[in-house]
């Protein structure tokens, strides 16, 4: 399409304006606010539709300021020089498009078909170049560029591109090389885990074999241990047996020792012993009985006899005295003692008759009696005088008392009574005690006299009157004393005798020595004497017999002694003991034999043992050993059981099988997912490639063209454009490379322009739409401006270029007939 002119009904500042364009290229030059940009938007709006009131587009609506009409006409030629008129107006809400081809109205569809594959969006994107669009270069990627190409390159490609996008999304949702949550990534991870698990579990075979080997070892060990156990048990049994036998052994040992130390005596000797003993006893009995007959005085008797004989005179004297003393004793008993009693009685009687008489009273001689009587007379006269004085004093005192009484009491009776009473008392006193009262001073010689006579208690009268009695008493007393003397004499003789007996018979303390005792003793001695006489007569008859037996006895004893000597025994008792022991010994010997039989098998072993303690120790040690072996055996059994259990567990553990199956499930899942992903990925690739093929590999050509343009625009500074997945890299002639972001703003704009123009040039075979450039090259320097003019002229051969600018010098690069100057 080449636009030959426009008729603007109303669009922005433009109202009813007609402009003609050169069909190759048209430069429109004007100052700001002259409607240059508006003119470009007018063209775009008429070709593809008015901008809506929404979004960014509202700035491009350019509703007319003055005119009532919104819209206009474009006159254009197609490739075959057909004349097209495109009229688009909008009244209120209704937009109206009318298209005429060679003055013939044609349908909108036909018009659309003519434009195809160009769309409004693509046109805006590629054919409408302004300063903003130049900045798109920073975002431009190969894909985007390619997509633009593909969008144009293949009929219906949009649909495919959408499918491609969908499948790409699907592929990405299944797997991403660095993804984590995508199904295929998850399955891969699970696969690794499962394989790791499997590696561990796969060892089970080795493990099982190892268990079997261990078990085998344990079994061998068990056999050994069993043998050990058996021998240990035997040891225990052996020691136990020894221990059980120890008691017997100890007995055996003891017996052995005893039998060794003790003497054995023959039966004959034993019999002899008893024979001798018997014989000795018999002999002794005979001797005894013979000696009984031939009784001799005992030694004591002999001694007594000897003593008696030696002291016969003394004995005889004492015997005689005994007789005398017995007579005297008889006399005492029968005569003197009753006489004494009688005397005593007479004295008693006398004393009772005269109670004041003391036993000690002595009879007074005649002279003494006369003296006493004189003393009595003197004393009586002195007593009378003293009594008169007392009576007188008493009367005076009585009178005085009576008077005093009267004065005090003024009564006469009471003092009178008192005085009378006093008198009477005195009288009584005088009569009653005149003697006593005078004694102390006057009777002293009498008292002394009486005392000397032993008659203290007797009154003076009684002393005289009782002189007869007193004499009688004294007589009795004298008789009594004479008897007493006789008894004492007897006692003295008796004691003397006793003393002699005691001495002679050597009597000891408790024995009462009396006449009977002595007589008995004496008779005993007499008997001894008699006996002695008898014996002497018998002796000569029995003695030879006794002698005979004694000799036999001696012989037997000799035999016994020999026997004793033989066994080094001192006494018969010892021998007897020995013989008694002989029986026991016999038993011991038998016992020893039994023990030896019992111990036959172990005796030698037992003899190696020192003590029961040692044996216990050994036995204990053996028990310990056995216990240890048993413990080891138990442990072994336990270990075997454990191993068995482990092996069983392994044998029945199907973890491996399960894991293998799980891995297989995972593999299937993984492959399914992978296939899905790969299908999608390959589908994307296939669609791309197909579209690319269909679009005849425009992309490489496009890049090549762009490089040429860019080289021109940069005065040969840059020679290559490279798209990498993430960036756009430019290579300089010096082989330096720059990222698009490292370019200056101007160079970046030149790059975009180069790419865009190359794109338009590339798709020129598909669609030829005018390029509208809005003052985009204003920043270019002169040489670049020159180059762009060359490009525009070059492009114009295939595509119409409508270029609006402000600078005259730019316009000056083009021929005048191609420049339209606008005036404000």
């Amino acid at each position, binding site marked *: 399409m080449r636009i030959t002119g426009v008729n603007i009904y109303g669009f922005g500042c433009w109202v009813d304006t007609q402009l003609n364009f050169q069909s190759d290229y048209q430069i429109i030059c004007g100052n700001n606010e002259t409607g240059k940009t508006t003119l470009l938007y007018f063209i775009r709006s008429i070709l593809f539709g008015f901008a809506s009131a929404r979004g960014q587009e509202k700035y491009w609506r350019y509703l007319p300021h003055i005119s009532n009409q919104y819209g206009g006409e474009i006159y254009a030629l197609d490739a075959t020089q057909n004349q097209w008129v495109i009229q688009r107006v909008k009244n209120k809400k209704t937009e109206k498009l009318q298209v005429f081809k060679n003055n013939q109205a044609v349908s909108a569809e036909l018009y659309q078909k003519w434009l195809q594959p160009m769309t409004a969006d693509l046109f805006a994107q590629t054919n409408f170049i302004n300063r903003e669009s130049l900045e798109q270069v920073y975002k431009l990627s190969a894909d985007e560029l390619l997509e633009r190409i593909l969008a144009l390159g*293949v*009929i*219906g490609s949009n*649909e*495919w591109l*959408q*499918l491609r996008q*969908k*499948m790409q999304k*699907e592929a990405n949702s299944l*797997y991403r*090389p660095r993804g984590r949550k995508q199904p295929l990534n998850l399955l*891969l991870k699970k*696969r690794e885990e499962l394989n790791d698990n499997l590696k561990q579990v*796969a060892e*089970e*075979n*080795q493990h*099982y*074999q190892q268990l079997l080997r261990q078990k085998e070892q344990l079994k061998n060990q068990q056999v050994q241990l069993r043998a050990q156990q058996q021998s240990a048990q035997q040891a225990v049994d052996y020691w136990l047996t020894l221990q059980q036998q120890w008691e017997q052994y100890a007995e055996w040992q003891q017996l052995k020792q005893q039998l060794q130390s003790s003497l054995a005596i023959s039966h004959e000797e034993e019999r002899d012993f008893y024979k001798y003993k018997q014989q000795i006893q018999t002999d002794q009995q005979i001797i005894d009985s013979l000696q009984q007959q031939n009784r001799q005085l005992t030694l004591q008797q002999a001694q007594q006899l000897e003593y008696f004989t030696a002291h016969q005179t003394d004995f005889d004297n004492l015997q005689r005295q005994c007789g005398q003393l017995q007579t005297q004793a008889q006399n005492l008993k029968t005569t003197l003692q009753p006489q004494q009693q009688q005397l005593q009685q007479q004295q008693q009687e006398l004393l009772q008759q005269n109670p004041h008489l003391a036993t000690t009273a002595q009879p007074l001689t005649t002279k003494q009696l006369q003296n006493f009587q004189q003393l009595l007379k003197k004393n009586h006269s002195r007593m009378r005088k003293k009594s008169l004085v007392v009576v007188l004093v008493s009367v005076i005192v009585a009178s005085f008392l009576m008077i005093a009484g009267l004065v005090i009491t003024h009564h006469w009776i009471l003092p009178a009574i008192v005085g009378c009473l006093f008198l009477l008392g005195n009288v009584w006193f005088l009569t009653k005690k005149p003697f006593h009262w005078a004694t102390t001073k006057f009777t002293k010689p009498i008292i002394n006299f009486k005392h000397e006579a032993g008659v203290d208690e007797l009154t003076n009268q009684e002393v005289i009157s009782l002189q007869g009695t007193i004499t009688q008493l004294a007589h009795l007393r004298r008789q009594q004393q004479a008897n007493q003397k006789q008894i004492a004499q007897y006692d003295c003789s008796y004691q003397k005798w006793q003393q002699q007996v005691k001495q002679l018979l050597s009597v000891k303390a408790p024995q009462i020595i009396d006449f009977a005792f002595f007589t008995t003793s004496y008779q005993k001695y007499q008997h001894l004497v008699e006996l002695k006489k008898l014996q002497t007569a018998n002796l000569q008859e029995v003695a030879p017999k006794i002698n005979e037996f004694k000799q036999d006895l001696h012989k037997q004893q000799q035999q016994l002694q020999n026997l004793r000597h033989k066994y080094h025994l001192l006494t018969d008792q010892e021998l007897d003991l020995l013989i008694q022991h002989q029986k026991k010994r016999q038993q011991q010997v038998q016992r020893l034999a039994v023990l030896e039989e019992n111990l036959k098998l172990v005796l030698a072993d037992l003899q190696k043992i020192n003590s029961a303690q040692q044996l216990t120790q050994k036995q204990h040690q053996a028990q310990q050993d056995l216990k240890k072996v048993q413990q080891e055996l138990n442990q072994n059994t336990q270990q075997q059981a454990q191993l068995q259990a482990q092996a069983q567990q*392994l*044998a*029945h*553990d*199907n973890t*491996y*099988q*399960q894991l*293998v*199956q799980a*891995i*297989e*499930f995972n*593999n*299937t*899942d*993984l*492959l*399914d997912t*992978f*296939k*899905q992903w*790969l*299908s*999608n*990925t*390959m*589908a994307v*690739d*296939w*669609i791309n*490639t*197909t*579209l*690319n*093929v*269909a679009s005849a590999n425009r992309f490489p050509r496009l890049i090549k063209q762009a490089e040429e343009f860019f080289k021109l625009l940069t005065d040969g500074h840059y020679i290559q454009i490279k798209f990498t997945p993430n960036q756009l890299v430019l290579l300089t002639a010096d082989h330096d490379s720059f990222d698009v972001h490292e370019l200056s703003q101007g160079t970046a704009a030149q790059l975009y322009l180069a790419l865009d123009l190359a794109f338009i040039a590339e798709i020129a075979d598909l669609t030829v739409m005018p390029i509208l450039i809005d003052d985009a090259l204003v920043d270019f320097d002169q040489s670049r401006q020159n180059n762009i003019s060359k490009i525009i002229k070059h492009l114009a051969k295939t595509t119409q270029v409508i270029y609006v600018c402000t600078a005259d010098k730019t316009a000056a690069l083009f021929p005048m007939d191609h420049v339209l100057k606008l005036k404000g």
Partner: protein
Amino acid sequence: MKFIHTADLHLGSPFKGLTYLPAAIKESVVNSIYQTFDQLVADAINFAVDFIIIAGDLFDNVQRNLQAQLYLQAKFQQLAQKNIRVLIIFGNHDYWTPSKAIITYPNNVFVFGPKITTITWDLGLNQRIAISGFSYDKNHIYQDMAQNFPRRLSNVDYQIGILHGQLGVAQQNPYAPFTLQDLQNKGYDYWALGHIHQQQILCKNPYIIYPGNLQGRQQQESGAKGYYLVEWDGQTTTVEFRPIARIIWHNCRLDVQNVTNLDELLTQIKQKIANKNNSLLTLTLENFECLDPDLQKLVNSGELLASLQQQITSDHFNYIYSLVPQINSRTIYQSLDETFWQQAAQEIFTPDNIADKLGKLQQVTPIKDLLQEEDFLNKLKQDVLKTMSQNKMED
């Protein structure tokens, strides 16, 4: 004389191509390899066979899953009680190693070593039998081992060769490649082969047989699986394939062009998958683009499959683990000239381009394996077309 010929048990192998198994059937699926072998042992005892030949790949890998080893040990003991011999060679999956981690088998089991060995024994009734074979001692054997087998012994009544290998050219094929001529030349009475999981009879005179694997473990091992029961009456050999696999894999296809509503769709699906065995299925819905868009949505969202899977019961199941809508992708070229697409496809469906796209994903084993699969690029292209079609249809 009777024997069982089986191979490729792959004990300890997982089930492949599944992403999930509902609890109701998981146990029986996962245990099916063992249960199937249980059946084999029971049959061996029932039929009173003289011996069992296992022609390699008893285990899924060289490490030999412990449970699998102990399981076999127990089974072999069971057979020992019935005086049934077991003759084993190891294949490329479970090649012989001097590892100590191998359980010893009872005396009725004979394992051939890496050298070709012939054992002979009397079966009674004056029947003397010889069996030749060898075990792999590495995962690849490029040599033509069959040529090295001894010629038939003259003093035996019946000779069997056991070989784990693949028909092919020496030095080119890594699995003891052999030619039928090799085997036939030896003059044996029977060749018990292993390695190929699809049962097939390569030759009838003498019988050269792949019994296939005993229990399928993935989509590719679909159809009936089992062992060969071989009987020799002193003159002729008769063989019988006995399908005993507990779980059968199926690939079903359903044309949904004329399906108009959900009920119809469900009914047709159920009819299609109905099977008296327990089965694991993939169901491909052909002409999917003809289906009502709402029904398409039900399929694409996985709702339909989920509801079908939910109805599964443990006693008998026909479990669809994958529902594949198949789209006629010609529709995709509508608006663009197909030549552009093909031109582009030639540019992008190249190993280099894919390697660029994958980056480190190439290192992931299953993906690496997938890339090495035959015709991968073509399949990928079909997948991409399908995906694009699907997406385009959704718009």
